[in-house]
C-alpha cells in the first residue's frame, strides 16, 4: 500500500487473480451505480474496504437521493466465488491522483486484480429504441487483442478538444497501465432524455458483456422485465403525448431536434416517468 493513503480494510479477502468492475455513483442514466448494485445483488458482493472521504469530497452538506440523505463514499465489495471485485464510488472533487492510486492500491494489493473494467455512460442524441452499443477504450494493445472476440466497438479516435478535460475514466485507465493492469472503459451511449433517469437497456448491455467476459452466469430475467416495463412506459408516453411521439419519431429518423425541443422532450419524459406513468 502507498503510505498515507486513506484506505480502511474491514475484512481480508482471498482472491488470487481477480477482476475489478468500477462504476461511478453519479453517472448518466445512473449506469455506474445501477450496474454495480446489480452485480453486488446477484453475486452476493460483500463489502470489505473503503476509501476515507475527507481528502476527496467537499463537506458542504449532503446530497439527497430518493428522499434519503447521501454521503460521499467509495466502497469495495468482493464476490469471492467469481474472483470479482466491485467498486462503487462517488467521483472525487479533488486529489484525483491520490484517490485513483487508492483505488488501484486496494485492487492490486488486497485483491490481486489483473483486469480493470470501468463503466461509463455517454449522453447520446439517439432515440431509446435504437439498440444500445458498447464502445470500448483500452489501455494497451494486449487488452484490445483480448477483447477482440467480443461484440465491442474498439476503434474510437479521440483527442480532448480545446477547453475540455479528459474524463476520470481515462485518468484511471492511464494509471492502471502504469501498474501493468489491463484495463478498459466500457462506454454505453444513453438517450439524452433518459440521462437523468435510469436506462435498463444500457445496464443490460454493459452487464451482459461483463457476464460473458468473466463467466459470471448471471440470470438477467429480472433486468429483462425492467427493460420491458421501461419500454412500455415510454410507449405509453408516446401514445398519450403526440408531441413526445413526434420528437422521438424524428430522432428515430436520424433527424436532429432543436435545443429547445431537446429540453422539452427531456422535461416531458422525466415528468412522465417520475409521476409513475
Amino acid at each position, binding site marked *: 500500500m502507498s503510505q498515507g493513503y486513506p484506505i480502511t480494510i474491514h475484512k481480508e479477502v482471498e482472491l488470487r487473480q481477480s477482476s475489478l468492475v468500477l462504476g461511478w455513483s453519479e453517472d448518466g442514466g445512473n449506469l455506474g451505480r445501477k450496474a454495480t448494485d446489480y452485480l453486488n445483488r446477484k453475486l452476493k458482493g460483500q463489502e470489505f474496504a473503503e476509501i476515507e472521504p475527507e481528502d476527496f469530497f467537499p463537506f458542504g452538506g449532503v446530497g439527497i437521493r430518493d428522499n434519503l440523505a447521501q454521503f460521499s463514499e467509495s466502497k469495495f465489495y468482493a464476490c469471492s466465488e467469481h474472483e470479482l471485485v466491485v467498486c462503487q464510488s462517488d467521483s472525487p*472533487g479533488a486529489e484525483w491522483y491520490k484517490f485513483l492510486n487508492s483505488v488501484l492500491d486496494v485492487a492490486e494489493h488486497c485483491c490481486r486484480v489483473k483486469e480493470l473494467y470501468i463503466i461509463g455512460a455517454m449522453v447520446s442524441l439517439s432515440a431509446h429504441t435504437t439498440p444500445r452499443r458498447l464502445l470500448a477504450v*483500452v489501455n494497451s494493445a494486449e487488452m484490445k487483442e483480448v477483447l477482440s472476440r467480443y461484440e465491442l466497438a474498439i*476503434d474510437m*479516435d479521440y483527442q480532448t478538444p480545446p477547453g475540455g478535460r479528459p474524463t476520470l475514466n481515462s485518468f484511471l485507465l492511464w494509471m492502471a497501465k502504469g501498474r501493468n493492469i489491463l484495463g478498459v472503459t466500457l462506454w454505453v451511449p444513453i438517450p439524452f432524455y433518459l440521462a437523468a433517469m435510469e436506462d435498463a437497456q444500457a445496464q443490460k448491455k454493459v452487464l451482459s458483456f461483463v457476464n460473458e467476459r468473466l463467466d459470471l452466469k448471471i440470470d438477467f430475467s429480472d433486468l429483462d422485465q425492467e427493460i420491458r416495463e421501461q419500454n412500455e412506459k415510454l410507449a405509453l408516453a408516446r401514445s398519450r403525448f403526440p408531441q413526445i411521439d413526434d420528437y422521438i419519431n424524428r430522432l428515430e429518423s436520424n433527424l436532429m431536434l432543436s435545443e429547445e425541443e431537446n429540453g422539452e422532450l427531456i422535461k416531458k419524459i422525466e415528468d412522465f416517468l417520475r409521476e409513475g406513468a
Partner: protein
Amino acid sequence: MGIRLYQEPQLENPILVASWPGIGNIGIIAVDTLRRILRAEEFGEIAPWDFFYPKQVLIRKGVLEYLEFPSSKFYFKRAGGKDIIFFIGEEQPTEGGRMYAEGRKAYHMANLVLDVAEKFKCCRVYTSGAAVALIHHTTKPRVWAVPNSESLIPEIRGYRNTVLMSDIEGRGGHGNITGLNGLLLGVAKKRGFEAICLMGEIPVYLQGLPLSYPKASKSVLEVLCRSLEIEVNLDKLDELDQKVERRIEEFYQQIPLEIRGQLDKLKHVAYAQPAEPGPITEEEEKRIMEGVEKFFKKRGEGG
C-alpha cells in the same frame, strides 16, 4: 514525487525568474518570451500528478495512447554574464474550481520551486504578474514592483517606468498579489531569498476578458532585461501586441458610448509624479468604475 532534474548544470549564483498564468497572462508571456529568445535549455520539472488534473487525452483506434498534464518546467541559460534559471508553470494548482492557487498545494509548489533555487544557490528570485489599473489600453503600461525586502527598494526606485505600491494613488503602499506569482515572493522571504514581483498594468476593463495583454508583458520584460543587464529584441512581442490590440479595439467599440466616453478620459492619464494630483477627478474615477461594472454585469446577464 516532486522535482525531477534531467541534468545538473554548473551555475554560478543564478537568478531565478518564475511565472504562472494569471490575468492577461502578462507575467508568463514576459518570462516565456525571454526564455524563448535566450533559447534556455530545459533541465528539470515538477511532477504534475499531485497538483493537476490531466489536460488532454489521446485515444487512437480505441487505445489510450497518452494522457498529458500541465507542465511545470525549469530551464537555464547564461546571458549578460549571469546564469538565469527560468521556471514556467503552465497552470496554477487550484483547488475547488478557484482561478488561482491557494492553500496547501500552492505552498507546496512554491517550496518545490525554491528547493531548486536553493540547490543551485540562487541569489535572487523574480516573479511576474498583472496589476489591474485605471489606465487606457492605448497608453504604455507601467510596472508595479513589489520586493520582499526593504533593501531592494532603492534599486527598484532606479528602474524606469516602474512604481512601488506606495507610489500608486490611494493605495498607501498596500495591496495583494493573488496566486503563486505573489505567494512565491512570500515563501522566498520566509526562506531567505531576496525577491521582486514585477506586475504589468492592465486596464481595469480588460481584466475579465479571455485575452492576453502583451503590451504589459513588454513593459515587464523591459524592466527585467535592464535589471538582468541583457539586451533582447522584442519585435515578436510587438507583433503579438498588434494582433491583440485589434481584438481589444473591437471589444472597446462594443462598450456603450456613455461608458466609453468615461474610459476615453483615461487616455489622458499621465503618471509623471505620484504626488501630483491625478488628471481625472475622484468623481470621474468613481463613474468609470461604476460604468465598467455595469457593462460587465449586463454582458454577464446577457450571456
